[in-house]
């Protein structure tokens, strides 16, 4: 019982493997995808992705599953019975995250955000910084799992 997970980012295919289950951060809430899931397309928000690989081959209640976390930025997912294709800007696996760098980015962006006046003119810049902060926080969260 497996499903093929493919993660594609603008810098290339970052992941392609058979997994047991994937939990994705859908815009309408987290959702899990198992084999023979109904075909559907949905937007994803910035959030964690959980990849669950089968641990043992035991049929009943084999919860030896090992799981891995990854930080996804927004994008969308295309699911069909045998495959999940995730298209996102970035996908960082927990093991690839540089905590210090993420922390530094979080601090820098939130400092800049605190200094910007909250008005129309700076709306674009504020939104940009808020995304950086949210992304860094997510990375820190995922790295800690």
């Amino acid at each position, binding site marked *: 019982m497996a499903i093929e997970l493919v993660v594609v980012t603008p*810098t*290339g*295919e970052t992941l392609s493997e058979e997994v047991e289950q994937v939990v994705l951060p*859908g815009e309408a809430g987290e959702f899990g995808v198992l084999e023979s899931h109904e075909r559907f397309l*949905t937007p994803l928000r910035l959030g964690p992705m959980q990849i669950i690989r089968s641990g043992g081959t035991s049929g009943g209640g084999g919860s030896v599953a090992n799981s891995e976390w990854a930080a996804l930025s927004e*994008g969308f997912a295309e699911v069909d019975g045998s495959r999940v294709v995730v*298209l996102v800007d*970035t996908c960082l696996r927990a093991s690839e995250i540089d905590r210090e760098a993420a922390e530094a980015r979080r601090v820098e962006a939130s400092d800049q955000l605190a200094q910007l006046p909250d008005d129309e003119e700076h709306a674009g810049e504020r939104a940009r910084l808020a995304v950086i902060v949210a992304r860094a926080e997510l990375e820190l969260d995922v790295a800690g799992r």
Partner: protein
Amino acid sequence: MANLRDIKRRITSVQSTQKITSAMKMVAAAKLRRAQEAIENARPYAVRMRATLEEVSRGPLEEPHPLLTVHEEKRNLEIVAITSDRGLAGGFNSAVIKTVESLIDERTGDFEKVGLTLLGKKAADHFRRHRPRQITFDSAIGGNVTYEQAADTARELARRYAAEELDEVIIVYSEFVSTMTQTPVVSRLLPFTPPETGDASAGRDGGEEEALSYEIEPDPEALLATLVPKAVETEVYRALLENQAGEHAARMTAMESATKNTEDLIESLTLQYNRARQAAITSELVEIVTGAQALE
């Protein structure tokens, strides 16, 4: 007749120029390879993006996405010009700049205001001198192109378009055709045109005939809200990558011919040097012989 030492000095100087140009050529070749890889890596994402966009645009939409809507009033045009940060790449940047200049002349009548978003120092250098008031944003590319950078630019343009500050956005960049050819490309970024849905059923693996082969959750509009801005970001990213590959290719070609020129120059200088040396020896010999004859 040029002095021997002067010729020698020129040869040495041309030789060191040659070292520089051939080193630059090799660096450009290595960078070109990496830039081409980056284009290759971006392809699967772009292809899937387009396929999905096609899929979604096939379904009925209740309200069109703001980035797909054509603005009736034509007030503000924004031209995004992409060049490299550095020169010494032959006519690479001037081709784009020239295209932008003629585009501005052409479109100024249709729009009240033409703004410029400049990526790459070369475009900024030129337009700061010639059209400083029209520049709305400029930035160097700096090192390798990142998706983040493309996304930031695209997001800002999309925000201004959606807010009706802009009525049309055109992007001008060099397309990497081959190592020898890079052509400036003018394409409309906003309003965004979704890919043609033409022979959608023909190219599909199963060849299903349903209107939509995917269930879309929560609804097509929500998906488009994510998809369309992403597609615009991908377009800008692709333009930046093409520009990057084109820059290195153009520099490689330019430096190759520069190296060739230095070779020719060294050859003719060496010939000149040998002739001068021979002439000096001959005249010395003549002096000695005449001196000896005088003593007899």
